[in-house]
């Protein structure tokens, strides 16, 4: 009987042991290499699997791709989009687009956790959306969608006992996604309380990390969406062979004009027809943003996490602050005064800590064909951004000197009103 049972269950047990061994082992099984074609595809795919994972990003960023952190603007692919220009004019860099609808600072902070060696002493681009800085900060469901246990366990394996990581743990614990793994959840509670992890916890996290790393290696490159790469190639064909700013600027204007015929907002027809038209007919959008404010938000501290991470890794970052389509802003009643104050507040947070590479486009909302829709740059907007991105990435830059302050994690800063800002600048120096 024993012999027969062994014949039946032997292979099964062996298979189980092998699978488990492969998953928990820290060995990489020849997956380090990644084809250039796959990297090209992944860099513009905007796939959530790529964002949550590690392996593909790690390989591409090691091959000269530069991380472009941001959110939904990356999906607005027209001929002047950074990925299209970099490809067409054979720039020394290629953007690796990180972010999609709903990704905000907190998600990006965790995204940075497992590409640290690719960020250390390197350059990056960070696109700040004013829309992130609403009263509630990042939406719990959106954060949950992009949440990655792999990144969290990686972070827990190298976190420091300081205010920053305590804040990150506390913030993560407010998200339902943190409960997806019981052991990670208890570890987070300990980090939030400033306690150390036990040996058993570290062992669990290490095994879990190995398992998720292997899973990511095996599966995250499968079934990458290829639609965006096709769009990039298609848009590149519309560009002239040789780069000339004035030629591109007038081309951007011409394309913009051709694609924004049917509405008074200079919004691309496609976007306008896709739902906006119906909503406008109902008349509910008139003045609907009248009381909206981007001035008081937990997002300011989440954003500080990203700044801290860049400072720790000595990453040189170019920040982009986009405008809002002015015609749209006027129609919806969004306060220009508030937007100006937002710009002031975010710039203070950046500049007072030594982040001085800022492309501030916040006053460009009325430039024709600058915005492709209500809040996203297109055509001439992308080109204006390229005017700064290209030299920043192509030329050698001075080493930044960061001077990080924990005060940006305080409730006081998150909730600081516009009138108090100048006083705050004086007193908290």
């Amino acid at each position: 009987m024993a012999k027969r049972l062994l014949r039946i269950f032997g292979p099964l047990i062996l298979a189980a042991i092998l699978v488990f061994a492969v998953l928990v082992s820290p060995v990489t099984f020849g997956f380090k290499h990644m084809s250039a074609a796959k990297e090209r595809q992944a860099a513009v795919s905007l796939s959530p699997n790529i964002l949550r994972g590690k392996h593909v990003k790690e390989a591409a960023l090691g091959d000269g791709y530069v991380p472009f952190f941001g959110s939904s603007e990356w999906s607005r692919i027209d001929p002047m989009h950074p990925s299209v220009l970099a490809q067409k004019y054979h720039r020394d860099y290629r953007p690796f687009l990180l972010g999609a609808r709903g990704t905000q600072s907190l998600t990006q902070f965790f995204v940075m956790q497992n590409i640290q060696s690719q960020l250390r002493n390197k350059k990056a681009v960070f696109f700040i959306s004013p829309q992130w800085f609403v009263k509630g900060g990042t939406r719990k469901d959106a954060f949950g969608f992009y949440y990655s246990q792999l990144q969290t366990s990686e972070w827990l394996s190298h976190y420091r006992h300081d205010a920053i990581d305590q804040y990150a743990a506390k913030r993560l614990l407010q998200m339902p996604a943190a409960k997806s793994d019981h052991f990670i959840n208890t570890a987070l509670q300990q980090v939030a309380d400033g306690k150390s992890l036990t040996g058993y916890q570290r062992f669990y996290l290490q095994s879990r990390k190995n398992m998720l790393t292997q899973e990511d290696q095996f599966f995250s490159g499968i079934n990458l969406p290829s639609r965006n790469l096709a769009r990039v190639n298609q848009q590149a064909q519309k560009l002239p062979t040789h780069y000339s700013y004035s030629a591109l600027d007038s081309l951007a204007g011409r394309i913009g004009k051709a694609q924004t015929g049917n509405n008074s907002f200079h919004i691309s027809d496609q976007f306008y027809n896709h739902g906006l038209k119906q909503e406008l007919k109902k008349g509910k959008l008139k003045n609907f943003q009248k009381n909206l404010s981007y001035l008081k938000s937990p997002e300011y501290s989440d954003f500080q996490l990203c700044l801290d991470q860049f400072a720790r890794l000595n990453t040189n970052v170019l920040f982009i602050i986009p405008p809002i389509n002015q015609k749209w802003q006027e129609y919806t009643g969004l306060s220009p005064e508030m937007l100006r104050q937002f710009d002031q507040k975010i710039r203070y947070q950046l500049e007072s800590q030594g982040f001085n590479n800022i492309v501030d486009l916040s006053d460009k909302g009325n430039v024709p064909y600058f915005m492709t829709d209500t809040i996203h740059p297109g055509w001439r907007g992308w080109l204006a951004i390229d005017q700064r991105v290209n030299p920043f990435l192509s030329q050698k830059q001075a080493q930044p000197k960061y001077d990080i302050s924990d005060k940006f994690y305080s409730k006081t800063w998150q909730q600081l009103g516009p009138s108090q800002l100048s006083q705050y600048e004086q007193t908290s120096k």
Partner: protein
Amino acid sequence: MLTFEPYGNPTYFALLGVALLPLMIGILYGKRSRLYETLISIFFLVLTFGGPKWTQGVALIIYILYEVALTWGYAVYRKQHNSGPVFFMTVILSILPLTIVKVTPAVANGQSSLIGFLGVSYLSFRAVQTIMETRDGTLKDYQVMTFLQFMLFFPTISSGPIDRYRRFEADYRTVPDRDKYLGMIQKGVRYIFVGFLYKFILAYYFGTILMPKLQIMAMNSRGGFLDLSWPVVGYMYCYSADLFFDFAGYSLFAVGTSYLMGIETPMNFNQPWRSPNIKDFWNRWHITLSFWFRDFIYMRLVFWFMKHRVFKKPTTTANVTYIINMLVMGFWHGVTWYYITYGLFHGVALVLNDAWLRYKKKHRQSIPHNGFTQVFAIFLTANMVCFSFLIFSGLLDKLWFH
């Protein structure tokens, strides 16, 4: 609370393995512990019908009590009397809950009935069959406890295979000898692993990865003749593959688990895609269902028609019964135009198939029969079936009416 789809994830299988281990050791040493079997049955039923799905659990308990009352009552009654109307009344009452569950969504804008639960149809088949065999006199020794075990046998409760009371009872009352049981374990483990391949790899690929893409493409390519397009054809094959691998995979889990428990639950699929004609297809596809329909609807109707001389020719009797039989099967899937059309389609196909076989028999000399015609027959049958699954899928409903 922990709650699972049966055979839904690795944890379920891990729990299953742990729970079955003592039972398997017991059978290997010639012992069956009724108590232990009942306990793990209850455990897995609570996992399936507990937690957030507790309303289903309550519906299941009430339903079971109702069916026990009916079958027990009828078994007691049948010992003394045998009246037709009482029998019909009992059968109607036993399928009443199922009928309510199936009709409710059609009349209440897609709302599902409160008395429904996962597996209500399969339990109804078992109950009806118990009543019919009691009437026939083939089932003489009805036992409430055995009936409960038969109905609530957890490996097959959610979607079959549909076992028969007497067959189940025979297995349940005996302990297979060691040699036979080792053979059953071997088969059971193999079935479960083939099930993994079917359900978690192939059905996942066809159903979760490919099908939604094809559906979007099909919806975007509307506008042509009947809104049909190449993506619709792709969807048809993809849906068929998903339907087969998903259900055959589930059935393999159910049969495999039964084998490990020493119960030889009948197989549901037997290489259906190699059927040379539609009749053979129904002998190979969802076998326990089609045999149930054959034994308890088709045969009974044919006898009734013949006894009352409703039709002159036996072929007419057969044809009419085919259509009724398949229409009932269509209605059973749900009261929508596409399920009913699907039933009608298969009814007509069976009628035509019979006619062709008769014609072929008469003209045996002039009709070639060789390897090529054999392959052609298989090809034709498979494509016919896939087309019927396209109707069944409801995609046409979305294409035309949404």
